[in-house]
């Protein structure tokens, strides 16, 4: 990756329009899927293209511009998930997809209080968060995921297994909601 370029040497309007029309819809669809709302997806799309313009030379040098944009939007979306108050709602909706069939989940009330998935993501390192996002939202194979994240396949598998192990443990030993509520209060103060 070359150094970021300043906008003075940036692209023309026609060049940006071309990539916007070509890649904008798929990037937008993906961001909406991850973030859950059109408003958030519009922000994500704008920020992604802002970085494309800012790093135009790097963008043009990529063999797969779309993959490069995926990675940029991934960073943005993960940051939004980490910082956004309402992120648990989106993940709550899809909790059964995350947990999978055949695993006993506690009642909805416990889920809403404990917010297991958000708790997991909040406690997870950046690499694992990326892995979970690529495997879950993009349905990437572990090999594709490893290439994008820059890790080995066994490492991706190990991180995923650790993530799922923690998910299962949290479901089975659902922590006392009150304590989590206090922790959430602390989180709310920080955000």
């Amino acid at each position: 990756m070359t150094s970021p370029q300043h906008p003075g040497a940036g692209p023309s309007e026609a060049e940006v329009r071309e990539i916007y029309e070509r890649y904008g819809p798929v990037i937008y669809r993906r961001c909406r899927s991850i973030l859950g709302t059109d408003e958030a997806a519009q922000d994500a799309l704008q920020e992604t293209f802002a970085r494309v313009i800012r790093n135009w030379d790097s963008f043009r040098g990529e063999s797969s511009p779309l993959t490069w944009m995926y990675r940029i939007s991934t960073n943005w979306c993960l940051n939004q998930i980490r910082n956004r108050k309402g992120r648990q709602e989106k993940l709550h909706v899809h909790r059964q997809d995350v947990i999978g069939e055949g695993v006993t989940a506690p009642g909805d009330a416990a889920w809403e209080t404990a917010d297991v998935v958000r708790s997991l993501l909040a406690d997870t390192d950046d690499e694992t968060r990326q892995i979970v996002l690529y495997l879950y939202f993009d349905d990437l194979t572990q090999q594709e995921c490893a290439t994008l994240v820059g890790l080995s396949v066994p490492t991706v598998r190990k991180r995923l297994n650790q993530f799922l192990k923690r998910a299962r443990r949290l479901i089975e030993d659902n922590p006392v909601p009150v304590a989590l509520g206090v922790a959430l209060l602390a989180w709310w103060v920080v955000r």
Partner: protein
Amino acid sequence: MADLFKPNDGSRPSGLALARMSTGETDRVEGEPLAAFEAQVADASEALPDFDFAILSAASHRVDDRDPLAPEPRAKITWWRSWVLIPTLSVALLFFMTIIPGPSLENRVKGPGDTDLSFYLLRRGRVLPGIERAPLRAGDRIQFTYRADRHETMVLINVDGTGAFTVFYPEVGQEPVAVLPQGRHVLEGSIEVDDAPGPESYVAVFGPGSVEGALELVQATFESGGHEALEALEETDPAVSVVVIEKKDAH
């Protein structure tokens, strides 16, 4: 959305693969998955903002010069919030430790088990991300990065395609090398790939009692099932991380 317990094993195109087909980056493979994907894109496009170069250009001026692929930094905590945060966290912690029974606490405290060995590939002056099982050529150099997850020592052992074992770290002596216990770090020095036949496994054993003990573990595992057994060991032993490479044009 995918089911994380049933990861994509390659039997279906990933979302990225479909997106690349849909945008013309790769050849289209017509079928239900691509049709469904494009229907989703069409649906999403209804809310796609109209192209506005002025807005995007202005937004690009706000973007800093960090590598766009680097993770976004976490928000800083303002000083007055920290005064609220510290007592709040203290109360939460106290409550947690006194009220919550042991097993729940285990869920909250991250233990060892997140060790990792990865690598960069140095080829003809370029630095490339290391990809597991991607074929390497004689003359390529690999530089490892690691995450020791609180362990303070490590031994790195190579098992080549002929089943020969070589201890790379430490280079000499019988004491495991010291590593930094927190964060990801680059292992000093790089290793040149030779023309011996592949595959090769690089096995990092974190926190071993001795080099000899680590070597015995790796040898016993390899003898029980070769490189696949070493990869399996990584998934069962949290103190072990493995990188397997293939060789190209090896004699």
